[in-house]
């Protein structure tokens, strides 16, 4: 019922139309050379209103008398905002000068140092997905917006039908989200239970930009930021009222409605409340992802459809120009079928019921800036599993995962340096059970992890700001407690686990020290080089510490004494702007990992219903060597055509593997990390013009090893996945308040398969129609 209410609301708003009257004429220039800029976007009070013609001119008629906020934007230029007053029957003729973005980008980032800095001023590699790119990139989900950043590896086998996605980078295993920290407005979202992130939570409409810091960020953020940190920044309105409502329809009978409303009660004043509300609903019939052979063998294969909806609300108050408090609430609910249905009404499926609360107070006075945040993330995960083999089996996995904490940062700027420090307190917990309905078994697991972090960082600027040094150090202490693994009323489904029944798993603790030192020399506005060393770590996940159970390849036993794994990273990078229109960047890195966690054969075996399987457990046993480089080029052919291309190479190899048992038949020494492509390349072309704006992208994914043993996989029928190329296209057009866009993902209908032989959705087309107000 609720979905129909939401659709009705969206439709009602879609037909809401605001009328206006009067006239504004304008001409848009490049502020550096006075050339006229064609096809720039002009919006008034947040609604797209015009596009400049080939002479850089535009005209907006029928404006009502009053005050207007004009926003002019164009790829490669800083967005210009201007307030104007128009009297009754007045015709205003104005000139607007857009400033080209200098160097790689003049964008400000906060993620790399927890202080505001221009990207080119930070001696690490930071990539940015801007609001303009978010509009132009053909993406259905938040993680897909990152697809075209060099070195980013996204694992989303089934497009929007994937119940989870993993985003990793720089040669780290593509199946492990816990090695990259993901934040929303600086608040961590990796769950302590498995290190995973629900990338489906957020609607792309609520995202202002995404900052990606590559290489270890543990000196500021602690655990998970071992390979890098991704910070999703949500929108904060400065307008009195603006909004957007849209609906799209596409392949597999996929339909979505989106609503975004925002406002500020006193947009011109220092004080005042601001708010926004974002809701979306999506459903799809889905498709059959099983191979043809599986479909022949299994009569219970069906389409893997989905239903999801989410809403988020932000309420903030600017106490004055220096202090702000903000509260964010997010709720998300989904139901994704996995493509097999025997008796249950929705078949095998997964559901996430998520609440995310974030409260923040930030401000500044004189040379000090501070930020205090509280967060609470509750996820109720439910998985229904049913199948018919020898007989019918039906059970539910019910897992409650809670992560909450408080984060604080204080920065103080002296003459040529900025000192930043802070304290973080976090707790993560899991309370889960596997409840069988075709036998009496119930299997429980639970555990908690407290983490305390303390960090300090110094940013020093020398030699007329040409030389910048950033040094940082963080100490983390964690303890695992309240762990248990229990089996109730076991039958043949679970009796083999009885040896691991333990109501009170041993408490354990660990600590980690994460240093960082980076230097940068900026020759002038067009050239810079930097180098850095940083150490990052990933904590063990609760799932490995307190849950035993079947996993692919054997039976996993829990180990509460698991310690963190570490990565020491050395990096060298350079950026250059050549011939005015060409911008390039190159980064090379060398990483040594130690205590890497792998599932290791204990030498014992356990009897499953389908034969003996090895007993394995996650252990800190491996040393890993990763090195690679990333090269990016951005070329502006004309004012309205921009090409971005990049290539990333990664070599990831296990250099030392110490088995737990002499009976372990596996030796991973010399093997390559699974799911890491050696070669990745992407190209993006953005073309803005009077008729239709176009964004076309292509991504090449090189071959990847299927498993860590680099062995032949009988399902994939190879030891490596095939390389493939995906091309996407987005065409969009705005006519006054109305906008329409055509999204085509995987134009070439490229097929690729995962380790279970399941295939991707293929070509996926959606047509969106909406209105801005």
């Amino acid at each position, binding site marked *: 019922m*609720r979905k129909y209410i939401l659709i009705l*609301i969206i439709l009602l708003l879609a037909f809401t139309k605001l009328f206006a009257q009067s006239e504004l004429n304008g001409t848009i220039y490049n502020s550096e050379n006075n050339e006229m800029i064609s096809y720039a976007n002009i919006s008034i009070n947040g609604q797209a209103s015009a596009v400049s013609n080939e002479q850089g001119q535009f005209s907006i008629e029928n404006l009502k008398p009053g005050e207007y906020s004009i926003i002019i934007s164009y790829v490669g230029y800083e967005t210009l905002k201007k307030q104007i007053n128009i009297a009754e029957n007045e015709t205003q003729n104005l000139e607007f000068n857009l400033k080209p973005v200098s160097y790689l980008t003049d964008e400000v980032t906060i993620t790399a140092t927890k202080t505001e800095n221009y990207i080119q001023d930070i001696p690490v590699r930071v990539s940015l997905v801007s609001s303009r790119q978010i509009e132009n990139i053909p993406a259905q989900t938040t993680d897909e917006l990152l697809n075209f950043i060099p070195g980013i590896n996204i694992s989303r086998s089934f497009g929007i039908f994937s119940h989870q996605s993993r985003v990793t980078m720089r040669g780290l295993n593509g199946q492990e989200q816990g090695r990259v920290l993901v934040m929303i407005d600086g608040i961590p979202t990796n769950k302590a239970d498995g290190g995973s992130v629900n990338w489906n939570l957020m609607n792309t409409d609520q995202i202002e930009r995404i900052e990606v810091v590559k290489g270890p960020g543990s000196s500021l953020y602690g655990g998970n930021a071992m390979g890098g940190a991704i910070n999703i920044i949500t929108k904060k309105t400065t307008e009195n009222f603006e909004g957007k409502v849209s609906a799209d329809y596409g392949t597999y009978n996929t339909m979505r409605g989106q609503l975004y409303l925002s406002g500020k009660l006193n947009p011109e004043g220092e004080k005042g409340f601001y708010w926004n509300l974002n809701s979306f609903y999506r459903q799809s019939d889905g498709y059959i992802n099983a191979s043809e*052979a599986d479909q022949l063998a299994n009569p219970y294969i069906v389409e893997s459809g989905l239903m999801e909806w989410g809403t988020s609300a932000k309420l903030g108050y600017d106490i004055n120009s220096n202090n702000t408090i903000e509260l964010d609430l997010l709720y998300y609910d989904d139901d994704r079928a996995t493509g097999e249905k025997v008796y249950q009404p929705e078949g095998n499926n997964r559901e996430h019921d998520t609440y995310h609360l974030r409260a923040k107070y930030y401000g500044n006075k004189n040379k000090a800036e501070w930020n205090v945040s509280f967060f609470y993330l509750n996820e109720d995960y439910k998985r229904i599993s049913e*199948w018919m083999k*020898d007989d019918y089996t*039906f059970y539910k996995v019910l897992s409650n995962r809670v992560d909450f904490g408080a984060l604080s940062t204080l920065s103080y700027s002296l003459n040529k340096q900025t000192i930043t420090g802070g304290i973080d307190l976090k707790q993560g917990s899991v309370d889960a059970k596997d409840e069988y309905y*075709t036998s*009496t078994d119930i299997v429980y697991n639970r555990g908690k992890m407290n983490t305390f972090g303390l960090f300090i960082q110094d940013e020093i600027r020398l030699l007329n700001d040409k030389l910048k040094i950033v040094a940082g150090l963080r100490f983390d202490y964690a303890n695992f407690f309240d762990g248990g693994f229990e089996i109730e009323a076991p039958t*043949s489904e679970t009796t083999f686990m009885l040896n691991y029944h333990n109501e009170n798993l041993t408490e354990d603790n660990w600590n980690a020290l994460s240093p960082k030192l980076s230097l940068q020399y900026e020759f002038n506005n067009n050239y810079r080089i930097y180098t850095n060393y940083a150490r990052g770590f990933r904590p063990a996940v609760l799932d490995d510490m307190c849950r035993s159970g079947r996993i692919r390849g054997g039976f996993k036993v829990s180990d509460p004494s698991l310690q963190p794994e570490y990565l020491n990273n050395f990096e060298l990078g350079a950026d250059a702007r050549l011939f005015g229109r060409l911008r390039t960047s190159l980064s090379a890195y060398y990483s040594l990992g130690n205590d890497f966690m792998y599932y290791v054969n204990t030498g014992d075996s356990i009897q499953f219903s389908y034969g003996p399987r090895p007993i394995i457990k996650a252990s800190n046993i491996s040393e890993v060597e990763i090195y690679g480089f990333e090269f990016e080029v951005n070329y502006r052919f004309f004012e309205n055509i921009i090409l971005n291309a990049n290539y990333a190479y990664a070599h990831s190899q296990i250099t030392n593997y110490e088995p737990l048992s002499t009976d372990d038949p596996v030796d991973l020494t010399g093997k390559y990390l699974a799911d890491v492509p050696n070669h990745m390349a992407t190209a993006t072309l953005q073309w803005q013009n009077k008729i239709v704006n176009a964004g076309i992208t292509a991504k090449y994914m090189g071959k990847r090893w299927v498993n860590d043993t680099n062995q032949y996989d*009988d399902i994939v029928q190879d030891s490596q996945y095939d390389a493939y190329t995906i091309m996407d296209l987005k065409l969009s057009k705005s006519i006054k308040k109305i906008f329409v866009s055509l999204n085509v993902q995987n134009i070439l209908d490229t097929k690729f398969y995962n380790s279970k032989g399941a295939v991707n959705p293929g070509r996926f087309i959606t047509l969106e129609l909406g209105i801005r107000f």
Partner: protein
Amino acid sequence: MKVYKPFIISIFLCFTFSCTEDELSETNPFVILKPGAEYTKDGASIPVGGQIKFGISAVGDGAAITNLTVQRITDEEVITELDRGMYIKTGGLDTTVTFVKGPAELETWRFIIMNGHRDTASVSAVINLGEGSAYGEINYFSSITIGFQNNTELPYYIDLHTGNTYNNTTVEGHEPSIDLASYYYLSSGKSSPTLSCPGYETARYYHPEMSSWTVQNSTLYDYETTDYDLITIEEFDAAQNDSLLVNGYIPGSVSGTCKYCYTDKIIPFKTSDGKYGLIKVLHADEFDTGYMEIAVKIQK
């Protein structure tokens, strides 16, 4: 702005109060042993090796019946003879099960059903040990050869009751009597000549023709006895009646597929019509165009 306030409020209200959660109310499923001359009566005396036959009737009280468990309880142990998942939404459960009397003086047979709310009900019957022995005759097929999935010359399917073999052409009309099919694959990198049956999903992956059969028999193989060589070749060769066939089968470790059936393995099985048997692997290739040669002993 005022225009949108009702929408915002209504969105919050419907999002906040429209959440639902599965709630299971308590139910009272019910199970009885069916009366009738064909069934073994409560309190009956049966000699060791004699057949015990029960008729079971059960209802789920508004919820689907999801499990039937049968336990043989003696002074010394509780053996789960049957633990079967199912989903019977309407009409209730009506089934017949057969077992073989063991050597214990007194056996209590307990029948437990569970429904989709995880509520249970049970009924019991006591069977005494009768005089003498009732172990029965067996059929012996000393050599049967079948091919793996990519073998283009040999037949793929066996009727274990007769020892007859069939290929995809000759099996037409005989599908309801097929108990065994084999295939070869690498299981997590380990070579596995495998025995299976038409009722097992994975077998249909390797022999897709079986997918269209209207009757897909499920033979259960005892993988624990197989893996740990609990029956020797000498014991197999010496078996003259069905004693070893019945007692060598461990009902708690059975599956419709049996991996790692290498040469000289002994594999206990039970067909879908309740016949116990033993397979001796005389030869097993370890490639998918190869074949298996087996000897079979099965209850008459």
